[in-house]
């Protein structure tokens, strides 16, 4: 991938910080403004999209920046979702605590299963993460007494409260989603421009060379995967608390494929790409599922088309051709 050579060879002072900050804050401002103009249906869709985009941004940290093609990110999302949901259901722990517990659970899964999976690379890493995620999915079924398996459960309304505000209220929900989204977006941006981000890109481009330069590659990868899982888990926990439903379908392989699809579409290794991909795919699937039950056909066709013709995604291509400063 040639874009990173550009990133690596540009002196750190060169990217126009004001322009980059302006673009990202501008996106956040537009999202804030949309709250006041969107009709109900798109309002709730966008709340969902912003939370799911956090999942995608987390995936992008692993896949886009560090080159870790995981097929098991649903386990991190599900860890956040179920941890937050289960403590709300059985321990009466309300939103802020449940959210943190969800994030911690995802980090724990990354530090255990992820640490094991990182012992492998390439295709083996894909299969091992796939297997681990499958095991997590089956474990959710196995403890069906608590998780209620496929059917799932509804998070009690009394637990969906943050600082005295009702998370089921559309305005509160939208603003909470936006706050989480802003944190993940600015976090990704800061990471992409930090030394850590540059080392991760270096590892993605040439692992042996990074190792030769003295970087502890395994540790950097584990850091990246854990940060990625933290974002995915935060998205999962927020999804459960904001939308009030926890179910096993969120742990299925489909939810490991979706972030890959979103990131591929928007542009792997770009800060705004995951959000763009999530918006486009969400509405594409939404429109198709109105027409046919076989809406996953679109997912398949888009995956094939992207990998064949636009492996760099939309923003990756835009950066290559028009806006080389895009982070």
């Amino acid at each position, binding site marked *: 991938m040639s874009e990173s050579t550009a990133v690596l060879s540009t002196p750190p002072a060169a990217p126009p910080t004001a322009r980059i900050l302006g673009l990202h804050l501008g996106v956040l401002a537009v999202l804030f403004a949309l709250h006041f103009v969107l009709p109900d249906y798109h309002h709730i869709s966008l709340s969902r999209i912003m939370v799911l985009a956090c999942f995608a941004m987390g995936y992008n940290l692993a896949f886009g920046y560090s080159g870790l093609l995981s097929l098991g990110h649903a386990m991190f999302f599900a860890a956040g979702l179920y941890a937050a949901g289960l403590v709300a259901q059985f321990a009466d722990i309300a939103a802020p605590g449940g959210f943190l517990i969800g994030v911690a659970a995802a980090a724990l899964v990354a530090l255990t299963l992820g640490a094991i999976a990182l012992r492998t690379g390439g295709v083996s890493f894909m299969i091992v993460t796939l*297997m681990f995620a*499958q095991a997590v999915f089956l474990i959710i079924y196995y403890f069906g007494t608590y998780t209620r398996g496929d059917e799932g459960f509804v998070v009690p309304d009394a637990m969906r409260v943050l600082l005295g505000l009702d998370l089921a209220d559309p305005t509160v929900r939208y603003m909470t989603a936006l706050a989480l989204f802003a944190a993940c977006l600015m976090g990704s941006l800061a990471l992409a421009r930090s030394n850590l981000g540059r080392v991760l890109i270096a590892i993605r481009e040439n692992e042996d060379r990074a190792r030769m330069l003295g970087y502890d590659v395994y540790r950097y990868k584990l850091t990246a995967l854990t940060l990625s899982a933290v974002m995915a888990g935060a998205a999962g926990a927020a999804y459960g608390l904001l939308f009030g439903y926890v179910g096993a379908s969120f742990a299925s392989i489909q939810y490991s*494929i979706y972030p890959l699809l979103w990131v591929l579409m928007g542009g792997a290794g770009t800060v705004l790409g995951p959000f763009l991909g999530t918006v486009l795919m969400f509405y594409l699937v939404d429109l198709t599922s109105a027409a046919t039950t076989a809406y996953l*056909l679109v997912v*398949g066709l888009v995956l094939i088309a992207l990998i064949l013709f636009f492996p760099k995604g939309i923003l990756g291509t835009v950066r290559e051709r028009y806006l080389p400063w895009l982070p």
Partner: protein
Amino acid sequence: MDFGPYFLLASLEGAVGAAVLAVTALGLSLVFGVMRIVNVAHGEFFMLGAVIAWWVASLIGIHPAVGFLAALVVSPLVVGSVAILAERTVLSRLHYDPEATIVATIGMLYVIQQAVLMTYGPEARPVQPPFDFRIQLPWFGYSAYKLFVILAAVVLLLAVWWGLTRTRLGLMMRATQIDRETARAFAIPVDRVYAGVFAVGAALAALGAVLVVPVQQAHYLMGHDPLLLSFITVIIGGLGSLRGTVLAAVIIGMSDGIISVFFSPTLAKIIATLAVAMVLVARPQGLFGERAP
């Protein structure tokens, strides 16, 4: 029933599963061995084989045996053609890059599965077995068709072995597997070998499905379990080792059959998936493989 006969029944069920698994996983293993790619759509080729078998069998309504035999010929041919099409239009253009191929075959998985959902529908449909009698053992009766499945799988495996070791085409495949560049230098049409191997791999999945469909109904989501089990088998058997694949299929199929009779199938699956992941981490060459992939 006493433990002995019960165990015998479980073993017979396991052997049927192992036979179908060996044929299906061999297809995946062949593709991985020669082309060095992981085909995530393998389970959908299996499902497509089963659906086409139902379609052929229901078109030919003369006698179940005629329909079954026709399916045994038509289904792998159709599925093989679909595979060639997919290989030529998508995989060859990706230059068989391992990671891009996985993403593309995930795409194919959805396309095939959803296309079947749109045309065949969400129902599960049975295919009549070609013959219908039970062999009466002292403790229980057992379907003769299931025993035929085991026999047919053995014949198929021997045919693949013969094809790979005794024919010119097999020699080309093995040459490509060992060293693609040298094979090309010796005027072996590597591109066509790749397309052929991908088709044979898919056809084997379809054959496994035709064998199983009189016992298990055809359904558009039926590709999931064979895919997972084939993955497990190929990894345990050692990536690229055909002998290891067959050996692993027997062990996994038998133990899967026996364990799911005596224990919770979910627990068995959890243990199996975790064990396989650990095998891949600790011994990337598989339990029976000799060289690193």
